[in-house]
């Protein structure tokens, strides 16, 4: 049984919003497909960038004959190469994403579709790798504006997974030896191993990283009280707590430390981080983020 109705992801509003978004890279990795992103390759673009000595095999059409006349040596003109930005989307589809109402997985998958569509519309390649306990390949990296609907349809057909294991998913992604690009991790980052294990795993990624953190106000203030046996929806682990004001205060401190850890990690590593409130409209939140300065990977 699918986790979301198809109409929630194959949504014209999403695709319309995607057209207004632009994800740009400071520099994309070389040897990519020709697209809108500035590449470290020198190629057939319109913008002149540099000269270099001629080497056998160079296209003679690139030889700068004016310079040859002035200096008596052969130089070829180098132009900026515009290539695609590989984007690897990692939506979290673990059980915890579909516990509450509305499920935070809905916001995560809509954000995934929006970002994927935005990238595809600017001719970038997009791969989708949902994860829970393990990483799966929903769509290998490819481009094409029409892929947006295909990806949305496939995402809607996903089934909720088990427990969250971000370190394992990151490790598996790294093992795919994908071209360097932008990894977008869409998750609440509630990994039973702790946020330290998550950030430690993320450090091993050789891609640029954008974290779309799925949050809710109740994450910081659960509003629980009394003697409770809390059951982890993913692992089934039970934790008996007697929630008093002191305990609530202690919880807030713990959650703040969690948030601070993520913020510091992103700041130190130059990692993009978008906090989405799952109770609010995803499109408007992302649009606002991109319109306020865009996002540069």
């Amino acid at each position: 049984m699918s986790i979301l109705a198809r109409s929630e992801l194959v949504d014209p509003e999403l695709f319309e919003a995607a057209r207004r978004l632009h994800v740009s890279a400071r520099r994309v990795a070389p040897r990519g497909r020709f697209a809108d992103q500035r590449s470290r390759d020198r190629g057939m673009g319109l913008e002149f960038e540099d000269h270099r000595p001629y080497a056998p095999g160079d296209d003679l059409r690139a030889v700068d004959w004016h310079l040859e006349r002035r200096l008596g040596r052969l130089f070829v003109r180098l132009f900026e190469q515009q290539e695609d930005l590989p984007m690897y989307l990692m939506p979290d589809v673990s059980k915890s994403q579909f516990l509450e109402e509305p499920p935070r997985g809905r916001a995560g998958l809509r954000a995934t579709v929006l970002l994927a569509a935005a990238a595809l519309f600017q001719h970038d390649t997009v791969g989708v790798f949902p994860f829970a306990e393990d990483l799966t390949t929903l769509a290998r990296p490819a481009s094409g504006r029409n892929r947006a609907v295909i990806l949305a349809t496939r995402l809607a057909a996903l089934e909720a997974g088990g427990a969250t294991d971000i370190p394992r998913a990151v490790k598996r992604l790294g093992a795919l030896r994908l071209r360097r690009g932008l990894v977008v991790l869409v998750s609440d980052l509630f990994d039973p191993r702790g946020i330290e294990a998550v950030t430690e795993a993320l450090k091993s990624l050789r891609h640029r990283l954008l974290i779309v953190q799925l949050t809710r106000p109740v994450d910081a203030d659960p509003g629980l009280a009394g003697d409770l046996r809390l059951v982890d929806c993913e692992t089934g682990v039970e934790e008996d707590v007697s929630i008093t004001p002191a305990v609530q205060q202690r919880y807030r401190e713990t959650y703040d430390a969690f948030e601070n850890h993520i913020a510091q990690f992103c700041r130190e590593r130059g990692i993009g981080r978008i906090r989405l409130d799952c109770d609010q409209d995803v499109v408007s939140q992302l649009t606002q983020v991109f319109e306020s300065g865009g996002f540069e990977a």
Partner: protein
Amino acid sequence: MSLAQFSPIALVGGLLALAGGLYALQRLRVRHSRVQVVTTMFWKQVAQDTYARELTQRFRHLWAYLLLLLLSSLLWFVVGGLRSDSLPESERLLILDRSASASVGDHWPAWKRLLREQFLAGDPDATTVLVCGAAPRSLTVPGDSVVFLDERLATLEPEQSAPSVEHAMLALLRTKNDMRPLDVVIIGQAPLSQRVVDLLPEEVRLFRAGLPNAVPSAALLGMGVSPAVSGAWERVDLGVRVRGGEAPVLHLAGSEIPASKQQAQGLYLFQDLPAGGQQFEIQLPRAPAPFDRVQGQLPLRQPLSVLLDPALEPIFGGVLAAHPGIQLVEQGGDLVIRLASSDLGLELPALELISSDQQAEAIFLGDPAAAAEPGDLALRKVLGELALDQLDGTGLATSLGRPLEVTYNQASLRRVGIWEDLFSIEGAALQSSRSFPVFVGRVLSWLADTPDWVHTWQAGVPVPGLDWIADSEQTLAGSGEDLAPPLAGSISTALGSRSVGVFAPQGMSPAQLPAPLDGPSGDWNLGTWILLLALGLLLLEGRLVRLGRMP
């Protein structure tokens, strides 16, 4: 209410400790509601840093605490042996016969077993146990458990004594001053006379729990000594009463003497035994111990010293000379025979011949022990003692032409005054009567006031003159005139060692008592009710927990 096991301080202290302990536990007690959450990672860390159960937190679940406190308090009361101070509706008195009968065969262990069964069949809070050996003694009081009873019974052995159950019943009669029903169960064969039963108030019901046919078929029942029928002063006859068995055998001075004759069913007579104070033993073949033998001592008869008025020598000289127990003396003496006009031996008890002008009655009997106005019964008793009833009073009166009267009255010394005329009737004088020697002998004995011939002391039977005892090895039962040796064996007296025998209980119109009611009384004690209440509360708590109404 009171507690059998704890003092009031211990009770209150225990309750406070329970309340405190439960208070602490209640604070630590948590009722968990299950809540499914996205993640427990934060809570796990919080729980590690914060103790969920702290005594200093707000007190919760007051009603649950009160229920637990009530439950544990009830159990505490049970442990403390709570009992009601209100009087039970009925009481039980168990009397164990510990007299010599208990030592026959295997009576004792069987009776102890019966006592224990009877104890368990009733409410311990309303049961008293008496053990009646030489004297009644309390074994347990209401509220004592069977453990106490077992402990005290373990070291208890039968006593060679007479049954004292009747004493216990009479004591009960004196002390019972309420109207509550009392069931008295006598365990054993101690006889209880109908006379005593009739004295008991209506609310006392009597039962007997004993073994059927527990009475030994052969036993010595009693013994008595009397002056020899043959008239020999220095000899006595010894009568022995037995039940079943063969004829008793007398062991005296190293020889074995069979009974002379059987007077009646179970009554044997040993005749003309020397009254020299010898020790003897009577043995009944085939009778069980301790009723198969008894020791005793024959009486020692001392001759009486008599002063005789010379004027009366013709009348009494021959009779006195022929009497082996009388010794004529010139002065002193134990008593005197004189004319009323004589001043011989004025300080001695006297047989006086007196003129009918001086004494209205034919025979005057003076006695310091007589009541101011003695009744007919006392007079008849004295007449029997003096064998006056053997005299031909009608003949004497006819010959004398006057009615003969006898008066029994108080006097400073014992004195018998008889008309002189009775000794001078022609052809019918008193001294010519066939019974005159007996009359003289009896009169002199009465005047001398010789004590009864107590030759064999019986356990539990009062001994007149026992106040002479200087050094007793036994604790004497009773007091004053009722002093009685409590146990069989020997007892030291100023006159030497005396044997004390014990005889099997015999017929004294014993009351026929029904067997006690079988089975427990059905009354549950307070502890049982409290335990049931605690169990009910426990079930209630379990139900409330299952329903989620209690943490």
